[in-house]
């Protein structure tokens, strides 16, 4: 849970409050919500979780409900379809019906 949010911001476990805030501000500049709505929401959500260390540790230590599901992780890890070019035969097979 905590690690999940730290990974979103690209931080390690011992990141200080100031490091979290600075990293958040950098990422907001890098991924403005108008252009990257999904990524910006993830970043905001991670920052909201991490900005209060007491709340973050309470969630991490005692929550019995995972922050996500295996299926959601799998979906998230599938790269953006546009990140590599789809072979022409695969592309044309999409029209087969």
């Amino acid at each position, binding site marked *: *849970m*905590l*690690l*999940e949010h730290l*990974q979103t911001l690209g931080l*390690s*476990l*011992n990141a*200080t409050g100031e490091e979290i805030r600075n990293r958040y501000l950098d990422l907001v500049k890098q991924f403005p919500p108008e252009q990257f709505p999904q990524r910006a929401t993830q970043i905001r959500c991670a920052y909201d979780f991490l900005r209060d*260390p*007491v709340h973050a*540790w*309470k969630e*991490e*230590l*005692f*929550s*019995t*409900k*995972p*922050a*996500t*599901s*295996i*299926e959601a*992780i*799998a979906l998230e*890890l*599938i*790269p*953006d*379809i*546009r990140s*590599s*070019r*789809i*072979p*022409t035969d*695969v*592309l*044309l*097979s*999409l*029209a*087969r*019906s």
Partner: protein
Amino acid sequence: MSRQNQKNREKSGPSPESARRQMEKGNAKEALKEAKLCYRADPCNDHQILLEQAFLFRIDQLYRFNQLDDARAVLHDLTAIKNVAAETITGIQRMQMLLNNQVSAAALSDNAELLTEVADRAVLDPSIPVPNQNDLPKQVQVVREALRLVEQGEDQSATDCLNEIPRSSPLSDWRLFVRGLSAFYQYDQERMLANWSRLDANRPAHRIAATLMRAIKSELPGSPSSGQSNVGEIADVKARDADRRLEIYQKDSSGNGILNEIVEFVQKANMRATYAAMKRLNGSKSPEHQQLYERLMDVFWRDSSRAESNSARTLLTRTLSPPLLDPHWNRLNAISADENLPIDEGPDESERCWRAYIDELEEMPFLASEQKEVITAVILEHIADLLKNVLDYLEDKIDEDPAEDWHFPPEADSRERFKSLYNRFEKNQEEVLLECTQQSVKLPEPFTRLISIYESQGTKLSLKKAESLAADLFSSHPGNLFASCWLIKRYCQIGKPQNARSILTDALTLRPRDATLNELRNYLSSQFICQHVQERQLTLANEEIERFAASQKVVGDTVLSQVYSVGIKLITSPETAREEIATLVEQSKEPCVIWLNLCRLVTDFKLSKNWRTEFDKPAREALSKELTAERAGEIARFFLSLRRNGHNYVGRVEHEKLFIKAIKPLSNSHRTIWAQEDLRDVCEFFLDRKDQKLIRRALLERGAKLFPSDAHLLFWYCRELMRLDSWRVNRIELSQMLRAAIRSHESGPRQLSPGDLKELKSLQKEVELHKPFFEKFFEAMGHHEFGGLFSDPDDFDDDDDDDDDDDDF
């Protein structure tokens, strides 16, 4: 076809409707079978037309699936029968041209639709020979070359080569598609839509574009929308099929083979295979795989902690390496112990596991020492919470009236056992909270709880400890309202109001409208008056009284300031004071409050005991008189103002006893006409009186019935009900009342305090959790009213006045 379908068909027999339905669903093979059976059963003209349609539908489908030999065989079967429908003959000619590659230039020039179909087919399948019509073979080559160039990232070359295709060409649709595709890869949404929105929705290029758009959570105009018609349904199936194909490609090309395996095993609930795959993932040295292992492990261990049986946890802990933040599974064990906490035995096992986890924090070098302090404090607070839950439970058990619990009457020695456990856990809670406050100042809650515990102990030493804790809390959290208010009251009580002034000023700067702080401002002012009088600095006292009177006028309550003015005269001119008291009593709508305030004044101003004797007698007489609801409200407000500030005076305990005695007939009578504010304040007076349970319950029940939109009365009543044996309370009604209380809080003029609101929401959560069970229970019982909530009014006669507090303090 499944056996079940076959059986159904045998039962109902072949029907033309069924064949048509299969065609509508896109099941060409089934449709043809049904049509053949119909024709065989009754070879009439209609059935033959249906059969020919089904044949053509099937041939067309096989052709589209590129199963050309099968399509040719079915076409051969169709031509073998004598065709009757004109559409069939046209259809056969079309399919013959497509399947036997006998498309003549003449046929193509006459049929634009066929030309488009042939062109699309040629792009999709390079093995198909293209008829030499209008440069078609060359243009197909150009489209395929452009697609290849885009695949290789040479977008500009692809665009350049597409210029060879004229706008009038049947392949101009593909020109738009390739241009849009190039924009798609370059994240150029505008250019992509500009091209793809012009595609013909019935052609393959549009289908591909729509699939790609859905993959990026977008939509192409003209894409199928579900559920509109049968045609829409078929289009949906085709779209889903294309989506699935793209998803498979994505998964296969993502390099997350193990993750895909894990997902499949999880979906099949095969945890052994899942964990075996996890082990392989953990065996990898790659940092990405290690990160992924931790993320997946986080899901698995949290899920297993909720599992009802231990076997899921055992399988997990025996098979897999523990997560980074729980190297010996102590946290998982602790959470499992929390989940299975034996409420009447205490959280010993949970505490043991959590303390083991605290010990192993030392083995986690990746955590900063400040983080370890916070983690330790958070865990200690959690242990204190568990202890508090157990203490609440035991307190209820100890207070429980054996006559009330008619389902499970307590055993004779159980109360003693509960008391002994209570004492042990109470001491444990205090120790844990102290340890927590020493660990980190970042958590204010343990400070406030420990301060309240020390305050309730009431000894000089414990109050000193509470003061020290409040000062620590205030210095690390200067905006903390609890610490500010507590210190202000404390300094007033120990005769150091000057220490409280700066705290109050700072707190009021942050929260100028806070009701508690404004009440404390008046209290502080009254303390300054008392201090000046005690030091006989009467001029200063009079000045402070003037300021106090001005602020009291704003809230419309001038009694206390008038009493203070009289108090000064009791020192300087007793006879004048007596005359003024007589006037005050005469003018007051509730003389009892004047006498009670005068009694208080004797203590506040440290006046002679003779004055106490003089004022105490009329106060007792006024309290012993028959009460009206309005008078009860006035007197309750007097006692509440003292209680809120922790203020006391000699004789208060006796006066409260007389008040309670006078209230009994009111609480017992349904004829009393209550004003909302009076009843609320009287109820509030009884909230902390553990010895007056029956009066409190009767008043709260009446309050909730008379004023169902008063958030406070509803909340207190619900809380009271929750303390009863759960079988005696209709939780469905309780749930409705809690919801009403929240609505009243949100919309009503008097809102609950944040603490009360938090408690209200937690009550609601608890009630909602058990509501389904109670709904079934009440349904089984056949009624919703399950007994009276409270005891018979005659019970009040047995109510013992065991309040034996000493009047001397």
